[in-house]
């Protein structure tokens, strides 16, 4: 999207950098003379995922500026070459081909979201580029590309690891839940989440009493919630996208859904604007997350990063706090940065080998990749909303509202069980 203001801001910033460079000492002059190092990607700047895509881009730009302040990569200034994929998978192959063939970028990273990562893979594989990747759920499952690295901490078996925490928590309660309802949106991520939940439910010996999907453009969720209520499940696992997450939570509240646990795989409850709108309706919902401002997750650098993000995000219409995606958008570039610095070249084979064996220190903690390019160990958090007040955005900035229940390593509080009586 063209935003004249951001153009101007970019111009001013570029001018400032040029001035700074001119007035700097002679040493970085050599670096300035070398050709810039180009990192290419497509990003959802319009379309369904644009809100998150733009937030990710802000995080990535903070990384770029940080790296250039340190003198760039391999002594070269880092530049981004990126295009808007408009959240349309069909655009992606063309854009990645262009990045490789016309723009001749030095490194590639992925777009945001499974549907936009997967279409790029065949092209990336043909050129054997390393492919740090931003939030694709099991996108590499069918390609099995050995230079794919996923920053989302879904773990080595993304489909089941995704909801495992939810079921572990349920199993630990007294009385132990016996029945479960699974409901999911008819689209890629939600169906995968539901499939994983189904496996986990069977493994945990839960009886599945309701298992249905709904089309994402559903207007009214009360009939669905009522049908779930009629089967009388102990717990409910929901795989949903932002608009339906809102609809589900509201409907559950209106119908007075009586279950012991509710949530699991609801996308959208991580975003501040939706949190503010739902307010107290969120209380006691247990849902996945990747990073929340709890003291147990205070990794080195993350506060500084978020401060920069929150400053940059003002007035851009993106998530004001940026807890969910931006730290990971920063981290997947940190992985690339640390690898390039370690092998001191852009040799893709060497970079891939390094990424496979090294442990990376990032703003989202220590990252170690497994064989299939996913995190070697899952870190899908299960958080529970607590004491959320009405119509108050600021409450979500700090700790206490989203308590980490699982995994134990990062736990910051105990579960409130049951969800509602």
């Amino acid at each position, binding site marked *: 999207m063209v935003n004249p203001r951001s153009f101007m801001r970019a111009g001013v910033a570029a001018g400032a950098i040029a001035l700074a460079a001119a007035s700097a000492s002679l040493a970085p002059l050599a670096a300035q003379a070398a050709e810039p190092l180009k990192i290419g990607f497509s990003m959802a700047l319009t379309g369904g995922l644009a809100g998150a895509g733009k937030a990710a881009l802000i995080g990535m730009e903070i990384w770029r500026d940080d790296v250039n302040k340190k003198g760039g990569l391999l002594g070269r200034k880092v530049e981004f070459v990126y295009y808007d994929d408009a959240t349309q998978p069909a*655009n992606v192959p063309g854009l990645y081909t262009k990045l490789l063939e016309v723009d001749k970028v030095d490194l590639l990273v992925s777009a945001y979201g499974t549907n936009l990562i997967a279409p790029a893979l*065949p092209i990336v594989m043909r050129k054997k580029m390393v492919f740090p990747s931003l939030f694709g759920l099991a996108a590499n499952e069918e390609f099995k590309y050995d230079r794919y690295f996923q920053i989302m901490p879904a773990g080595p078996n993304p489909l089941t690891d995704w909801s495992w925490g939810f079921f572990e928590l349920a199993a630990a309660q007294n009385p132990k839940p016996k029945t479960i309802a699974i409901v999911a949106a008819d689209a*890629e991520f939600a169906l995968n989440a539901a499939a994983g939940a189904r496996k986990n439910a069977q493994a945990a010996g839960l009886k599945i009493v309701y298992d249905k999907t709904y089309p994402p453009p559903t207007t009214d969720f009360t009939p669905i919630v009522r049908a779930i209520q009629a089967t009388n499940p102990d717990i409910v696992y929901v795989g949903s996208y932002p608009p339906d997450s809102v609809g589900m939570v509201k409907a559950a509240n209106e119908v007075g859904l009586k279950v012991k646990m509710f949530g699991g795989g609801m996308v959208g409850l991580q975003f501040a604007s939706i949190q503010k709108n739902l307010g107290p309706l969120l209380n006691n919902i247990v849902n996945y997350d990747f990073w929340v401002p709890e003291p147990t997750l205070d990794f080195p650098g993350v506060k500084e990063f978020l401060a920069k993000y929150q400053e940059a995000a003002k007035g851009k219409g993106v998530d004001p706090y940026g807890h969910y995606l931006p730290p990971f958008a920063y981290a997947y570039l940190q992985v690339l940065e640390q690898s390039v610095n370690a092998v001191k070249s852009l040799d893709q084979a060497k970079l891939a080998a390094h990424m496979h064996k090294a442990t990376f220190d990032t703003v989202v903690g220590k990252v170690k990749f497994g064989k299939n390019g996913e995190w070697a160990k899952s870190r899908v958090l299960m958080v529970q909303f607590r004491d959320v007040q009405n119509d108050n955005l600021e409450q979500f900035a700090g700790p206490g509202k989203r308590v980490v229940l699982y995994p134990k390593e990062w736990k910051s509080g105990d579960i409130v069980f049951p969800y509602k009586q």
Partner: protein
Amino acid sequence: MKSAAFWGVLAAIFAGGLVLTTVVENEYYYNAFYLILQATLMAVAWNILGGFTGYVNFGSAAFFAMGAYTTVALNKALALPLPLLILAGGAVGGLVGFGLGYLTLRLKGVYFAIATLAMAIVIETFIANWPYVGGARGSYMLTPEKHLWFDSYIQMLFMVMLLLTLTAVVISRVLNSSRLGRGLAAIRDDEVAAESAGVPTLRLKLVSTTVMGAMMGVAGAPFPYFVTFVDPVSAFNLFIAVNAIAMPMIGGTGHWIGPVIGALLVGTTQEIVKVTVSSELNVLIVGVMLVVFITLAPQGIVGLVQKHWKRKQ
């Protein structure tokens, strides 16, 4: 255009395409050309029913998607080669088109247009609930390793699409200038009058809807190999339907060359805008061009040229 000249131009374009694949290596251009050709094929197909016969089809994306999903299903079941998949896509599209033709018996004008819209949604729901082809989750296609004598698979796809589009243009031209085409025009101008004048309206309409459906199915069949990931949202994209309507309207619906001109103009603009400015402006451009053209030049570019021609004489 005289026949000899027409065939000469077609041959020259095809040869040009072949030469291009030996000269230009940059894969990006083939991607862009492919999308433009795909849009052209869709526009030519839409125009056979919309322009020649006067029935507006809002459900173009459904025909396109059926071609694409035929490929997904058959590739999974039998692993057929591409030419057979294209034939199959065309057959399925044509069959559904044939069925749509029978709808015109009862539904005229606006009702028909709405029925096509409803049809697209029903078909999309079925595909989204059919796990074999990936359902709503979508399914991946790996590009085959083999690509004949071409340097890459996308080059081959580009040539395939070029051949298909040229064939469609030939068919469209034949339909437009033959007796059959005059029958279709009679239906467009006044169906009741045509019927009473002895024009076999149902038969002609069936030909028209079947050819349109088959062409759209053919256009969709190679799509899974092109994108490597197909889900209902991208295959049934409304944008495909909008382009299929807007391009002929901008180029001019009465003449076979209209949709070709419209598609080349709009498609090229879109591809340029996509990489230079933004993808969202793409849609805005089609919208604005569509509205401006039909308000100010309802006969499209072809109509403008014809008017200019007449004034000169």
